[in-house]
């Protein structure tokens, strides 16, 4: 069932090539149907997965026999959580790109191939296969931004592509070396995770692979692609970038670097935790002074992803499951924020300058957008009742056990987070500047139905998980007992 998330996306890409170029409506509907099939498969897989399922094999076929590489798709609780996130983000992203008219067919083809690659990463339990899907996701991102983006799009697109590719080059070095050192002619993740790599090898291989992946998760100081890329990207692409692509990096770091090289992880735990905390505080402080609305969200993503990375290196179940939960939560909330800023506001006002938005009295002009944004901001600040609260709290508890000082600074990051969110909220929608004259001659086009549906889906998701986090946690927590994490457990982690 879960494998159909991947296949349906690529079938959708193929179907789109048959659509006529001047028929954006057909392209849209094809894409939406494809994404809905993917979401249905994701939900199906999620419902089927039980707390005690362990690692469920979806497909396992020999692929490249001479090198012992398998086409091995499987899922544990972490996978199904993130696949579900991808399904939601994919559908909502299409709803928010309903107004794409320019080369719509190509847009959705690139969009769906990105989605297909993302599903593939989350479901691969063969290292080689995982890497194939991981790289597959780079190129569509470039085109989505370079063709349909705004502000400095070619620069942002190239920066993103090169950062991703450099990250994956680092991963590839580690992958090739691990494959050779293990000498077992296999790239099966479970087999490699049970192989005791020499400590001297892990000492350099771990940071290489972890940072290689974490570049995509926005690890400070390798985060600079993120704001530039997010700002340049069209709405749907920035929703996907912040929503799922950044999770690819964190997921890879967890799934590959940490399970393969547990000893290396112990050596570098504090250093990486430090970088994560710097990311949290730095991202929040930079977001506090941005003039461009989208840059605020872009830097806030760096800050929130810092929590994911911090959670990963706490090495206790509370922190780790908090990190995974935060991946899901931030995927939904960041998607919602980018949807409001990029689609609801920017497509209508054609400016993202907070200073100019101040004068437009958006609170009254776009009531739906303002309500959505309030909810999104509140969720982003980590108010109880929303998913962000549970996730960040868990990470903080985990961090408190592992390194209390870092937990304090991360807490400070939350406080600054409240500040920049309130500032953006106040400037954009609730400015008390007297609106002297209505600057825009005609009123903004009203919020369309697809936007309303998309917004409602995202708000519902964050609320459901916030009110009943066990829905996800019951699947995530047992995943850390699987044989994949054996070495990590023996090494004193968990």
């Amino acid at each position: 069932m879960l494998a159909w998330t991947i296949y349906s996306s690529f079938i959708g890409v193929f179907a789109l090539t048959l659509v006529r170029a001047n028929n954006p409506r057909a392209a849209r509907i094809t894409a939406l149907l494809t994404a809905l099939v993917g979401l249905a498969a994701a939900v199906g897989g999620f419902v089927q997965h039980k707390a005690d399922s362990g690692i469920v094999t979806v497909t396992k076929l020999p692929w490249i026999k001479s090198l012992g590489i398998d086409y091995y798709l499987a899922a544990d609780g972490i996978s199904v959580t993130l696949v579900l996130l991808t399904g939601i983000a994919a559908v909502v992203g299409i709803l928010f790109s309903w107004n794409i008219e320019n080369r719509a067919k190509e847009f959705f083809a690139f969009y769906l191939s990105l989605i297909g690659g993302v599903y593939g990463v989350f479901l691969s339990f063969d290292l080689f296969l995982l890497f194939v899907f991981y790289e597959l996701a780079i190129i569509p991102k470039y085109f989505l931004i370079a063709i349909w983006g705004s502000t400095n799009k070619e620069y942002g697109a190239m920066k993103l592509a090169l950062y991703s590719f450099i990250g994956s080059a680092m991963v590839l070095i580690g992958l090739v070396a691990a494959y050779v050192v293990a000498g077992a002619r296999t790239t099966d993740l479970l087999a490699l995770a049970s192989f005791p790599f020499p400590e001297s090898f892990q000492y350099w291989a771990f940071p290489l692979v972890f940072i290689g992946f974490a570049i995509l998760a926005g690890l400070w100081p390798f985060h600079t692609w993120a704001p530039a890329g997010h700002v340049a990207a069209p709405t749907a692409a920035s929703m996907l970038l912040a929503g799922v692509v950044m999770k690819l990096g964190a997921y890879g770091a967890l799934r590959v670097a940490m399970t393969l090289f547990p000893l290396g992880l112990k050596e570098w735990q504090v250093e990486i935790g430090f970088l994560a905390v710097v990311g949290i505080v730095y991202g929040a402080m930079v977001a506090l002074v941005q003039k461009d609305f989208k840059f605020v969200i872009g830097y806030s993503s760096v800050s929130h992803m810092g929590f994911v990375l911090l959670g990963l290196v706490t090495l206790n179940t509370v922190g780790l499951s908090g990190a995974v939960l935060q991946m899901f939560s931030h995927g939904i909330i960041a998607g919602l924020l980018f949807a409001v800023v990029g689609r609801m506001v920017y497509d209508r006002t054609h400016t993202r300058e907070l200073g100019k938005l101040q004068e437009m009295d958006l609170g009254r002009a776009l009531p739906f957008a303002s309500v959505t944004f309030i909810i999104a901001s509140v969720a982003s600040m980590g108010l109880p009742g929303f998913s962000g609260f549970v996730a960040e709290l868990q990470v903080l508890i985990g961090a408190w056990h592992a390194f209390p000082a870092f937990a304090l600074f991360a807490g400070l990051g939350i406080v600054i987070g409240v500040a920049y969110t309130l500032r953006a909220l106040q400037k954009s929608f609730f400015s008390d500047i007297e609106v002297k004259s209505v600057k825009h001659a005609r009123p903004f086009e009203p919020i369309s139905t697809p936007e309303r549906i998309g917004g409602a889906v995202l708000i519902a998701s964050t609320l459901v998980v916030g009110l009943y986090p066990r829905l996800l946690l019951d699947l995530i927590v047992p995943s850390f007992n699987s044989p994949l994490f054996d070495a990590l457990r023996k090494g004193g982690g968990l």
Partner: protein
Amino acid sequence: MNYLELLKFAAPETLLVIAALGVLGVDLLVMRNEPARYRLMVGAAVSCLGCFAATFWLLSVDQQAHALNGMLVLNSLTLLVKLSLLLLTVFTVVISLDSNFTQHVGEYFALILLATVGMMFLVSAEEILMIFISLELASLSLYILTAFHKKNLQSAEAALKYFLFGSIAAAFTLFGLSLIYGLSGATNLQEIANALKGRTADPLLMAGLIMTVIGFGFKVAAVPFHLWAPDAYQGAPTPSAAFIASGSKAASFFVFAKVMMLGFAGAEGSGFWRNFIPGWAPVLAILAAFSMVLGNLAAIAQSNVKRLLAYSAIAHAGYALLGILTDSQQGVSSLVYYVVTYAFTALGAFGVVAVVENTTGDSRLTDFAGLGRREPFLAFCMMIFMLSLAGIPPLAGFFGKFYLFAAAVGANRDKLGLLWLVILAIAMSAVSLYYYLQVLKQIYVAAPPTHQGSSSLLMASSTPISPLTRLAVGVLALVIFVLGCMPDLLLGRLAPAIQSAGL
């Protein structure tokens, strides 16, 4: 061995020579007054017929031989390489169909076929005289092919440069080989290796070895013997450049590996990190490192796609040298996979360049602007070629690199001696994505040129793209995709072949 048997083993090459003479004869005697396009079609048909006949012979007649002191060594590995060479020739012939650079159609196709004959003999030679002769046959044909655009000054300049560099390199090779012969008293590679055993530190051997390496380094365009490549690629008529980049490269790499691994077995030395021992391995390691760095960095600055592809070819030569350095069966297997898939990719890319050149008149980056809308199919194929060259999965270029790097790291499992080169290669291929994306950016992102004045005139006067060219480019793209998704199709045949070839 009697002549009949010899003819049986050399039949594919003989068939190609007959085809070459046939093309010449037909064009000279019958087609003289026909329109150029018609002559091209007939010439290409005869050439393809020759290639198909040779392919058929290779596939149907069992070929296992070791004849004439190693002058003609046939096994399933040479069979595979020869088949790929024939396939590359057919595709080269097909992408020549749209060209209008020459009136001498018969000579053009005949030279392509003769170059193929040279490459095929090269592949099956394990004897230094034969290697040299077939190398020269291939090279001389390619020099002339480079100069074939008679009205273009660049073409003449490129050919002269190629020829001068090439003859100096050939002189080096010949000198090196004669030193080796003097040392060993043998011309067969195996016998040379036996005779040279235990003489690793001999300065004369080192001199001979380095001179031999220079000659082959020139053929595969490794830094610092690469200077001809950018000019030759840019100046030559595009189909000729495609042939230099694909067939010639694959054959040269194959024989390079053979000479080093068979002829100089025992004189490897070591190119491992902090463990350099004199021999051919450290020399190749340095060539590889420089080729990767210089090729990739110089490609960034190019504004002409043919020149860009030339520098990328230099970089790819650097990667491929890792296969020889690995010095094992896995190394050969990864090398053959890599150069064969690279040859197909480069050929396809040049095919698209040829089309663009025919419609816009030049091959600058800006001439590709808006290709995605003008020619969606060819643009898509170009995307596949560029991404495969950059090493993006699931295309053949990615798997080729992975396999090559895994083999190279595996050459010294305990100390990971070649890891330094692999790290350099992977870092440099990250750089390479930048310039491949520059091409794709022009194709998909940049706005198409406005149809005004001269450009629309050019559009109107240019010949339409023949469906055969589209087909050829499409098939090449499909091959790259399929070989990337299912590498076992080729690997499954390579491994036993290499085992039987005893490399």
